[in-house]
């Protein structure tokens, strides 16, 4: 691709929500006025110092931020190369980075006077975070979840229900994350006046990709300060897994204009890139779905294909539009890890560091296992440990038992 390099990688999107050719507002007319309202409400909130002050209070005392930047000594020794740090987003309240964004959106929803919150969820982490904050602020919460994901992520379904949310199993299509998002959009079109749609990743129509990125950028901002305190300099590389890409963009964004920092996003390669997978950049091309133009998995006729990954949080057939742009400009390198590689990383990390990661960041760890040994010992590598693995334990146990037979 021959895109002209921008002066800054951090100035997007433009006023129409575009990152290069990506992004935009491809929604039904019924939703358009709502999206314009949200854009204005978010701009107002951003300009209001009391909004950030209130957020900071909840981030500290309710979410438990800042999350630690931890030197993973045994993994570093085991791999024998780069010095590896974990950004411990799995230690946040609710067990993943998702809560950073949900807190922000719920605060915006409260400013807009919306009482009914809807969300889509894949692995259930975004659903749990949304259910949690709705409980905290006394809001009605409805979570759309593909029926297949309801089956494979039972612990999170139960958590959401305990928190008072209504979980709606979606039977349409392949019954996974993409279909949950369709169903959430259908609900929103129907319940326009009182409903706020809390999108869980850096996708959807403008202003969602920008707003979710902004709320997640606390990950990278903290990392920058923590690395400065620990090592007195910037890291040399960043690694994060990508479904829609919110944990990745949250880590990456504050570093995009630091040219010495190498940045790697890791997509889910499922059974392998020539078979069933969920790697939109490696195996897809630009198209339009769910309100934005971005890399998508589709057939020759423009029909969307199902993503496949062992991780319910990664098997979305698209990716946030800003990632598509960062790919085309070459600022971020996108890699992919297979189900098999992620499982191996899941086990290695559990035994070496006493940290059971979610299957999503296990994909990032899998690529760290390849990248780190090739880097010198003074190379500082940060990987976003975006979620904890509690939710995946039954599924992984079943797979490992089946493999032993």
């Amino acid at each position: 691709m021959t895109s002209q390099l921008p002066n800054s990688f951090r100035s997007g999107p433009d006023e129409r929500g575009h990152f290069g050719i990506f992004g935009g507002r491809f929604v039904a007319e019924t939703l358009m006025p709502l999206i314009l309202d949200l854009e204005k409400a978010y701009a107002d909130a951003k300009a209001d110092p009391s909004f950030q002050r209130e957020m900071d209070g909840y981030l500290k005392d309710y979410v438990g931020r800042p999350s630690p930047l931890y030197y993973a000594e045994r993994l570093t020794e085991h791999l024998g190369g780069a010095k590896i740090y974990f950004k411990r987003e799995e230690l946040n309240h609710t067990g993943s980075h998702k809560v950073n964004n949900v807190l922000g959106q719920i605060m915006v929803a409260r400013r807009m006077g919306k009482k009914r919150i809807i969300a889509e969820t894949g692995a259930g982490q975004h659903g749990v975070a949304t259910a949690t904050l709705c409980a905290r602020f006394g809001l009605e919460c409805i979570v759309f979840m593909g029926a297949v994901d309801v089956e494979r992520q039972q612990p999170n379904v139960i958590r959401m229900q305990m928190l008072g949310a209504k979980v709606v199993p979606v039977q349409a299509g392949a019954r996974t994350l993409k279909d949950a998002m369709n169903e959430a959009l259908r609900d929103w079109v129907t319940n326009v006046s009182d409903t706020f749609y809390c999108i869980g990743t850096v996708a959807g129509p403008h202003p969602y990709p920008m707003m979710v990125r902004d709320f997640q950028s606390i990950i990278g901002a903290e990392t920058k300060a923590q690395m400065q305190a620990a090592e007195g300099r910037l890291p040399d590389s960043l690694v994060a897994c990508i479904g829609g890409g919110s944990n990745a963009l949250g880590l990456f964004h504050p570093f995009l204009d630091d040219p010495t920092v190498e940045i790697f996003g890791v997509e889910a390669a499922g059974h392998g890139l020539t078979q069933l997978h969920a790697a939109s950049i490696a195996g897809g091309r630009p198209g339009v779905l769910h309100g934005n133009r971005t890399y998508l998995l589709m057939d020759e006729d423009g029909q969307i294909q199902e993503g496949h990954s062992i991780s319910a949080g990664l098997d979305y057939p698209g990716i946030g539009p800003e990632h598509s742009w960062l790919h085309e400009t070459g600022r971020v390198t996108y890699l992919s890890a297979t189900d098999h590689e992620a499982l191996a990383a899941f086990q290695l990390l559990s035994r070496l560091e006493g940290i059971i990661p979610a299957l999503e960041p296990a994909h990032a760890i899998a690529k760290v296992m390849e990248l780190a040994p090739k880097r010198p010992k003074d190379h500082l590598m940060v990987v976003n440990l975006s979620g904890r693995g509690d939710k995946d334990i039954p599924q992984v146990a079943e797979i490992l038992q089946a493999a032993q037979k």
Partner: protein
Amino acid sequence: MTTRIDTRFAELQKQGRAAFVTFLMAGDPDLDTSLALIKALPKAGADIIEIGMPFTDPMADGPAIQAAGLRALKAGTTLKKTLALVQAFRRDDDATPLVLMGYYNPIYIYGVDKFLVDAKKAGVDGLIIVDLPPEEDSELCLPAMQAGLNFIRLATPTTDDKRLPAVLANTSGFVYYVSITGITGSGSADSAVVGEAVERIKRHTKLPVCVGFGIRTPEAARDIARHANGAVVGSALVDALAKSLDNDGRATASTVGAVTELVRSLANGVHAAQQAAE
């Protein structure tokens, strides 16, 4: 530029009646049956024909049209085959306006310029693309107008007076008023409320206004036709089609008849309504 749509509305106005607009999904349940159905529509009373372009992720559609799209895709329908269907229809009918309705991605992937050339050549008169609001007019709306196709916009209950001019600015052919906030096939609108909404839109445009979403019976169609220049029925026809299929979702001997019979009775409802003098 005068399209078949403009000509049809001029004729109907002379006759003092509203347009009956039908929606069926291209290739549902298979391409041959679909062609037979579409060919039968004008005789059964359809004044304007909307044909859905199937898409895997129809975000504004309810269960009936979602299922229709999946049946069509399963039967191998592609955008190219949808255009071939239009071309086949046009061999015998050069008057009935034909509008393609759907989502943007299949057109984007086909290639906008190539699509517009091929659609025009096949005999398409207008486009309704659900996920292209005026904010994205440069994508397809403006090129379509240049190519001589009507770009028919949806106006909804959330489109307020402040926004209406933007929605109507590049709209041509007619305005499609979505009478409820919701997905296709859900709920039904009160005809008095719809009447007020149509009047509101007419204060901003001279274009005909057709009303859709939630019209299922001849009586409802008649009530809407009293207030608007046209009534659109989709999900009810698709439901009738679905009920006529066998257990494997294939067409039966009764499929075409079941749909055309409903079209006939709905058309009678629409045509029974006297149009208010313009």
